[in-house]
């Protein structure tokens, strides 16, 4: 057996364990470097590096390797400083870490005594006086026994999490002895995706069978309880840890929370956990989607190669074979793409719970009797869509209750049932989901709309206001028909905000109203924004992607089809006249030579259509749409970008803002789109 005296005899064992530790340390350091570049360094990575160096120090001490021990010792202090947040993991810190790692490797390989003491590194690693973070005034309701079993490092992470404004949770799970370690590691890595497991504490529960073990996990994260629950096994329990800030005794409750008001019996949102499902962060699915998009580009290139091969005399049969293989690959890739999109889908029912609570709460405060009904709430939409739909829908529900549905008395007088009905309906139509919210209230009050519009200067004093005009007016910025600011509705934001929020999601809003009988707001949305079939066109030497859903047809450009009406170019198409512009003009690109465009893309914009001239049609592609970044935010006509292969990017056109853009031909006024019959 081993002992510190047996150094020579057991050199082999020392070397093999030291090499293992150094290999793991090297992996950890590389991970840290990568994470630092991506701007997100996991504290767990620094702690793991610390642990490996710590073990190496112990090992060197055990076998009497003095120089290695010295270096490991100072490196351990250095890493301790990093994990305790005393100094940052910057480029120079990484440099010295990598250099130390390399030096230790050579010390282990060549034998310690052959090397001089690593004084240079020791000097660079030497850290200044230990600065203690000022004590945090906040107290937690963490049980004393848990607090006492935290290491210094875990305690530091706890305080860092509190400072970062994270919430603390105590997760209790009971797991079978047979598999608890795997289960727990899996759970911890899932939890670590969105937060940090600070401490894992096995605990004895009275009545625990021999075959089971209980654990309490101290977990910090920015989510709320409902979200964490989805990670947990069925029988796990969750306890929020209160954080008291002595300087902030009065905690303000946000509007949403107060409206949502909840006792446990009030929680419509709680859904039974589906045991057969896993929760995956959206970014991971985004990443898979990116890879699928890249694969499709490769496939495209393969197709090109196969075509070239098919041209050649000798390579023809090879080309055909490659072409077939690439066709098969394409089918499989599309399958894969559909599956990934499918994985992002969540049912509309996810937001119904919240709306139901809002309806109940508002009904109580307004003295109205209201029933929320849903239809097709199993209809699925991209998770990101669902998340962004919440606030516009809440706004529409408020509007319906405040302005639409009458008091029970008023309803009785109008010969209606005393209980008002709100119906949220979801239907899938092709690549779109249509959501509609209907109430059976009083409908748009045309006279009230007219008066408000006049008062706001949006309508002439004596102007008529029919239903059509009113429908347009209510979506205008600054219009709000609220007479007084209600306590639960009308916060000065109108339907225009709802409309623009939905347009940002690629959606459209329409309002239908029948005086006395009710109002329906219909929202149509693409099922997903992450990937879209697009027509890729070339114009002025640049490639642009146009969502296929916005294209009504494409045709060859013929000069005789284009005429001018009141100085503006129009395109005649089967008896209709459509406003026409060259895409280069719409985007204010230089028209170097006034070459005729080769093709015309007829786009649907709102209720109308717009014809655009482009140089070439490059074909239809499934396109992964990416944001263009904050520096280009708000550029008219552009909604994002996509990769076209080889690092080239193409811009994705945003048809509504493109149609609204002033063109040089039409002067400063927006290009009007012709309403189709």
């Amino acid at each position, binding site marked *: 057996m081993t002992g510190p005296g047996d150094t020579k005899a057991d050199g082999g064992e020392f070397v093999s364990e030291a090499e293992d530790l150094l290999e793991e340390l090297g992996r950890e350091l590389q991970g840290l470097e990568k994470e630092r570049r991506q701007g997100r360094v996991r504290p767990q990575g620094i702690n793991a590096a610390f642990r490996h160096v710590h073990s190496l120090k112990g090992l060197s001490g055990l076998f009497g390797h003095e120089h290695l021990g010295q270096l490991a010792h100072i490196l351990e202090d250095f890493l301790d400083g990093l994990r305790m947040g005393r100094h940052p993991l910057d480029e120079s810190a990484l440099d010295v870490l990598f250099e130390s790692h390399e030096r230790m490797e050579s010390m282990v390989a060549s034998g310690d005594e052959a090397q001089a003491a690593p004084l240079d590194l020791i000097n660079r690693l030497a850290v200044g006086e230990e600065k203690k973070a000022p004590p945090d005034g906040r107290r937690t309701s963490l049980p004393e026994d848990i607090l006492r079993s935290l290491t210094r490092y875990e305690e530091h992470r706890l305080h860092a999490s509190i400072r970062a404004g994270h919430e603390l949770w105590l997760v209790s799970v009971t797991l079978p002895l047979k598999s608890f370690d795997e289960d727990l590691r899996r759970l911890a890595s899932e939890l670590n995706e969105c937060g940090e497991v600070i401490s894992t504490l096995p605990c004895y529960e009275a009545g625990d069978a021999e075959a089971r073990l209980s654990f309490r996990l101290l977990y910090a994260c920015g989510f709320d309880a409902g979200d964490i629950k989805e990670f947990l096994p069925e029988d796990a329990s969750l306890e929020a840890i209160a954080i008291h800030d002595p300087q902030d005794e009065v905690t303000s409750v946000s509007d949403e929370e107060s409206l949502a008001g909840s006792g446990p019996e009030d929680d419509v949102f709680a859904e039974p956990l589906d045991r057969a499902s896993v929760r995956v962060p959206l970014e991971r699915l985004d990443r898979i989607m990116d*890879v699928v998009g890249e694969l499709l580009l490769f496939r495209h290139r393969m197709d090109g190669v196969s075509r070239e091969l098919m041209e050649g005399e000798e390579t023809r049969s090879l080309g055909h074979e490659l072409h077939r293989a690439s066709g098969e690959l394409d089918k499989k890739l599309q399958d894969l793409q559909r599956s990934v999109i499918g994985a992002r889908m969540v049912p509309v029912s996810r937001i119904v719970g919240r709306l139901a609570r809002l309806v109940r709460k508002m009904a109580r405060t307004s003295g109205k009797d209201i029933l929320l009904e849903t239809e097709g709430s199993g209809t699925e939409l991209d998770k990101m869509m669902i998340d962004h739909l919440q606030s516009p829908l809440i706004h529409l529900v408020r509007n319906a209750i405040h302005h639409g549905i009458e008091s029970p008395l008023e309803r009785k007088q109008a010969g209606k049932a005393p209980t008002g009905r709100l119906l949220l309906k979801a239907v899938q139509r092709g690549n779109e989901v249509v959501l509609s919210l209907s109430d059976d209230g009083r409908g748009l009050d045309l006279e009230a709309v007219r008066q408000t519009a006049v008062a706001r200067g949006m309508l002439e004093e004596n102007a008529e206001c029919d239903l059509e005009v009113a429908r347009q007016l209510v979506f205008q910025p600054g219009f709000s028909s609220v007479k007084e600011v209600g306590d639960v509705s009308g916060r000065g934001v109108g339907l225009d905000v709802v409309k623009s929020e939905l347009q940002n999601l690629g959606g459209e809003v329409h309002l239908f109203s029948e005086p006395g009988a009710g109002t329906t707001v219909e929202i149509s949305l693409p099922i997903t924004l992450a990937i879209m079939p697009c027509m890729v066109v070339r114009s002025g030497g640049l490639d642009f992607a146009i969502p296929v859903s916005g294209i009504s047809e494409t045709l060859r450009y013929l000069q005789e089809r284009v005429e001018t009406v009141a100085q503006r170019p129009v395109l005649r198409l089967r008896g209709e006249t459509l406003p026409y512009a060259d895409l280069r003009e719409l985007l204010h690109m230089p028209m170097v030579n006034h070459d005729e465009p080769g093709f015309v893309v007829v786009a649907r914009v709102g209720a109308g259509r717009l014809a655009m001239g482009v140089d070439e049609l490059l074909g239809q592609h499934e396109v992964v749409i990416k944001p263009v*970044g*904050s520096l*280009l935010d708000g550029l008219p*006509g552009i909604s994002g970008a996509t990769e076209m292969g080889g*690092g080239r*990017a193409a811009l994705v056109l945003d048809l509504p803002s493109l149609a609204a853009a002033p063109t040089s031909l039409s002067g400063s006024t927006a290009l009007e789109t012709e309403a189709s019959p």
Partner: protein
Amino acid sequence: MSRETMNISDLPPSQGRDPDNVTRRATIPVLQVLAFRLAGERYALDIQEIIEILKYRPMTPIPQASDLIHGIVSVRGRIITVVDGRIRLGLEAAEIGPASRIIVLRHGEEPVGLLVDEVLKVEKLPVDSIAPPPSTLVDAAARGIAGVCDTRQESILILLDREAVLNV
């Protein structure tokens, strides 16, 4: 590491006259910067702001965007907006050559590129050698110039402030 990216640590280290900068560091803090060339002048950015350095590759120009925006490029699935360093600093427009590089910088949550003529090296500047921009340069702040450093060995090094430079 891909062929097209370069690790900052791959760059030649500074050949400064300070072989003993270990002890130096203990007394005077140093700033590690990446020096690069723009229209014959030497500029630098704090190395901590830099994610990576890319070789120049063809870009997609953005219609209707400001002249400062050179274009966008897709790097490993992310779309990066590239700012033309020369135009940003009020110098003559860029000429793309074999030495042209894109310095990818952190800008909030997203990476943003800065097009430069040539990447020179990583230098360690003692902070006491950095002076405020000369008062004759009235629009220094607007151009994103944070200070100057005269190493007396080469031409003056002009220190840029990442946030101000990318505030376009």
